[in-house]
Each structure stands twice: as C-alpha cells, then as structure tokens.
C-alpha cells in the first residue's frame, strides 16, 4: 500500500470558501471521476479482503481436530468483530495521522466519517472517501489477528486471546503501520511494502510466534523426541478456506494500488491481480513438487500452505514484477513453507495451521525481494528488523502479563476433551460424536 495522504476534514473545511466561489457549474467527470473510481476500488477491495476472514475461519476449522472446531470458529468471528471496533476507536487515526514522520503517532481518537450527502466541493477529490478508506484499511488489521488465532489453536483460552486481539488491533498494528503507511520514519527511509508482506503478515506472524513460545505446544505433540502429528478434521474446508483467501487477496493487493482514476492506475490494478494469481499458483506447484520429492507423497495441507505463502510473498511488490517474476517470487515462498514447517517442529514451536512459515517467513522473503526492484536493501532489512523487534517484544510482554494475570492455557483435561465441549458446551459436529 502506498503512502496515503488524504485531506483531513479540517483541511477540507478551510478550503471550502475557495471552492464555493468556483461552484457555479457542476463539476465535470474529469474532476470527480478519479475520486469515484478510487472509492469504488476501496469498496470492492474492502469486501474482497473482508471475505478473507471467512477464508481464515474455514482454513483453521479444517486444520484443527474436530473437538476444537466450534471454538476456532468462535475465535474467528470474535477477533474480526473486535478488530473492526478497535480500528474505529483508535486504530485508523493512530495509523494514518496525516502529516507525520515520527515513531509514535499521538492520535488516540475515533474515526469520523464524512457527513451524509457530501458535496463534491467538500470531498478529497485527489483521493477517495474517508469511509471507503477506513472500511478498506480495517479489513487488513483483521487479517493480522486471524494469523495469531491459527497458530495458537486448540489450547489457548478464549478471553485472554481476545484481550490480546484488542491490544494487537487497537495499538500494536496501527503504531507499526504508521511507520510506513502513515508516512512515518520507514517510509521516509525508502522502505517499500506495497500491500503488507511485513506490515500485515509478518506482524501477525511475530505476534503469533511470541504467543506460541509463551503458550507451549499442544499436549502430546512432542513426545520422546518425536513429533506426533495431529491431522486436521476436514481438508475440504481447509481447501475451501485457501481458495477463499486466494480470492480475497485480489482485493488485498489490487486495492492497495490506492488509486483507480487514471488509465495507468486501473491498468496497474489489473497487473497486480494477474501477478497475485501467478504467485499463488507458483507457491502451490512448488509445494506440490517438493513434498512429492521429499516424502514420496503429496501433502495437501502443505500445498495449501504453499499457495498462501506464494500470496504472502508477492504482497510486498505485486506491481513491478513480470508474470515470470511473480512466478519465481511465489515459488520460493512455497519452498520456504515446505522446508520451515518441520524446522518449527524441531524447535518444538507448535504452529497448528502453519501460519508462521506462511505469514512470517514468506513475508520476510517477499519484503526482501522488493529490493530486487528498488535496489534499497538497507531500507528493506531495516523495516523487517524494526517490525520484528517491536512486534515480537511487545507481544512477548503482553502474553507474559496475560499469563500472569489470568492464565492463557486451558486445563489439561479441557485440552484432552476438546475446547468445544469444555469451554463452549457445544460441538461443531455433534452428529459424528454422538450419532
């Protein structure tokens, strides 16, 4: 996502008298067309990215065991809704404070929309409506929180998790996001992360990694020096979830062009769609081939992860590459996933859905790869480290505090019997267990 600079409501009001003088004739399409097109891009992009919440929910429901599916779905709808409220309450204005190049933006104020029936003279005609911008941006913060829920599945208590989501979506993500997309110090330095390989995906990955370390692995996952796989409950849902995420990603990357009012801009959006699709395909094919070579059988769950890793990899720069460039970027993402999933198991870091390899490791790769186009390796590496250190350290502190105050892990008995029955008192698939 490029740096956004829209006129604040205050600035627009001061310009009002000037516009009013020239308002005798209604503005022509040349004046308002770009505003309408960009606003439309945000709305279409926004509901595509919204749908990624469904993708995450289905992917996670499919990859957890059947005794934890209802809890995983509960976390997914809760985290999205909390993210939406927190982003209104503080997140949006904290992340996009307008003129700003500091480290911490001071704007802890709720978002206010334009008045009903806004006149053309009062609109930020060089950009898009505030409402559409807010709507689009809040979908991204929800994606960050979804990443955390997948990693910590099957053993974390509901409420401490949701409190973490409040901190992540209301404060952590907007503060670090402002460094780049809010016009902060990283954007001044020349760091580039088009739609958020680092700002969205790695941030989610770092927060989840800290949580996984504090929380510990699921019972019985690592026993006597061996990894004990816990196969997911429904690979049809996991595959559907992946396809939904893939669809949503067109809005994620395409909408991040942040402009659609010129031939150049709308053509770029098309280019981004095509590149995004190519990277996803390349990531899936890379994982398909690599698992066949390594394990003599294709592992569907790895192919799904490989596809998503391809998408994360291209997210930092979906515009500049040729289709072949997108293929290479995505394929390397797919390879990273297949190689790093067993590596995390060796470290006894239990990531239920593979979100750390997909969002963190492939996110780092995608962000680094931008330097092949910009040449600014220093800025890319600085950005990756800055986001990593801030998010990981703050997340470690927050998880540790939550652990100390209320405990973050369910009891051993709850974990064995499943969170659906013990924490919720309902099951996703009651017919199977009682039928």
């Amino acid at each position: 996502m490029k740096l956004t600079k829209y006129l604040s409501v205050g600035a627009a009001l001061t310009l009002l008298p000037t516009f009013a003088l020239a308002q005798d004739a209604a503005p022509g399409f040349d004046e308002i067309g770009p505003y309408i097109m960009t606003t439309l891009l945000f709305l279409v992009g926004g509901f595509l990215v919204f749908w990624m919440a469904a993708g995450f929910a289905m992917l996670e429901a499919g990859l957890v065991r059947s005794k934890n599916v209802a809890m995983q779905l509960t976390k997914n709808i809760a985290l999205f809704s909390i993210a939406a409220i927190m982003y209104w309450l503080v997140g949006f204005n904290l992340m996009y404070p307008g003129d700003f190049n500091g480290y911490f933006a001071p704007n802890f104020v709720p978002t206010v929309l334009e008045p009903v029936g806004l006149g053309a003279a009062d609109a930020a005609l060089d950009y898009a409506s505030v409402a559409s911008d807010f709507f689009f941006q809040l979908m991204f913060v929800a994606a960050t929180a979804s990443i955390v829920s997948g990693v910590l599945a099957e053993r974390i208590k509901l409420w401490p998790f949701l409190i973490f989501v409040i901190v992540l979506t209301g404060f952590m993500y907007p503060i670090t996001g402002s460094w780049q997309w809010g016009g902060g110090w990283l954007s001044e330095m020349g760091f580039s992360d088009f739609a958020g390989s680092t700002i969205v995906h790695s941030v989610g990955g770092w927060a989840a990694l800290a949580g996984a370390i504090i929380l510990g692995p699921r019972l019985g996952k690592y026993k006597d020096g061996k990894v004990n796989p816990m196969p997911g409950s429904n690979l049809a849902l996991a595959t559907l979830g992946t396809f939904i995420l893939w669809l949503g990603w067109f809005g994620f990357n395409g909408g991040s062009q942040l402009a659609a009012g010129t031939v150049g801009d709308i053509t770029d959006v098309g280019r981004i769609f095509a590149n995004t699709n190519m990277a996803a395909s390349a990531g899936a094919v890379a994982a398909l081939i690599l698992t066949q070579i390594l394990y003599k059988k294709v592992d569907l769950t790895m192919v799904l992860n490989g596809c998503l890793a391809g998408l994360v990899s291209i997210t930092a720069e979906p515009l500049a590459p040729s289709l072949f460039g997108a293929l290479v970027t995505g394929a390397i993402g797919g390879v990273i996933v297949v190689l790093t999933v067993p590596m995390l198991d060796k470290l006894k870091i239990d990531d239920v859905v593979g979100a750390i390899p997909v969002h963190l490791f492939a996110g780092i790769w995608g962000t680094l790869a931008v330097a092949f186009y910009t040449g600014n390796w220093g800025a890319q590496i600085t950005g990756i480290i800055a986001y990593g250190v801030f998010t990981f350290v703050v997340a470690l502190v927050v998880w540790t505090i939550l652990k100390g105050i209320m405990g973050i892990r369910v009891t051993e008995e709850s974990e064995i019997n499943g969170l659906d029955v013990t924490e919720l008192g309902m099951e996703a698939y009651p017919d199977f267990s009682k039928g």
Partner: protein
Amino acid sequence: MKLIIATIKPFKLEEVREALTTVGVRGMMVSEIKGFGSQSGHTEIYRGAEYAVNFVPKVKLEIVVQASMAEQVVSTIASTAKTDKIGDGKIFVLDVESALRVRTGETNDDAL
C-alpha cells in the same frame, strides 16, 4: 447353533454378503472395526512428520447358523474374502447356547 465371527477387508463385504445369501444365510451383523494382526500397521507422513498407523480398518461379521451349516459358511467366507495378500482376516467359530426371536418368541433353530 454356531456363532461365526469373521474379520474381512472392508471392500470384500458386499461380495461376501452375496455369496452367503446364495448358500442360505438369512441374517448377519456387520460392524466397522479397527485392529491389528500380522498385517500390523504402517507409517504415514503429515506435514513432514512421520507417524505410525497402528490399527487397520476391517469389517467384522457375526453370523449365527444351524450347526450343520457352519462349515459351509466358513468355507464360503474364506474363499470369497481371500486375496492372497496379508491382512485378509480371520474366522472364529463358537458354540451358541440359545436363541430367541423377539417378535414371535420362537427359540433356537426356529429363531434363526
């Protein structure tokens, strides 16, 4: 009366049922089970980690017939379920003390 318990490969069930119907068997109980015998288990890989599948799925048949029919039923199951590969299953024959048909109150051979 004899109770014949047979474990067979699941895909053989329909073939065995047909063959038994042909030789005059008028009822059977079927359950899906898991177990291990000389076939033992095998290993699979999930997300890069190898794990052992210790129990293999089988189908269990339970058939009660007149003592005179038992031998024919056993040989029919054996010849139909046989694939000559490991894991074809086993057949056990037990004595049955009594039988009763709930609807009519008929007992023993009449109840079968």
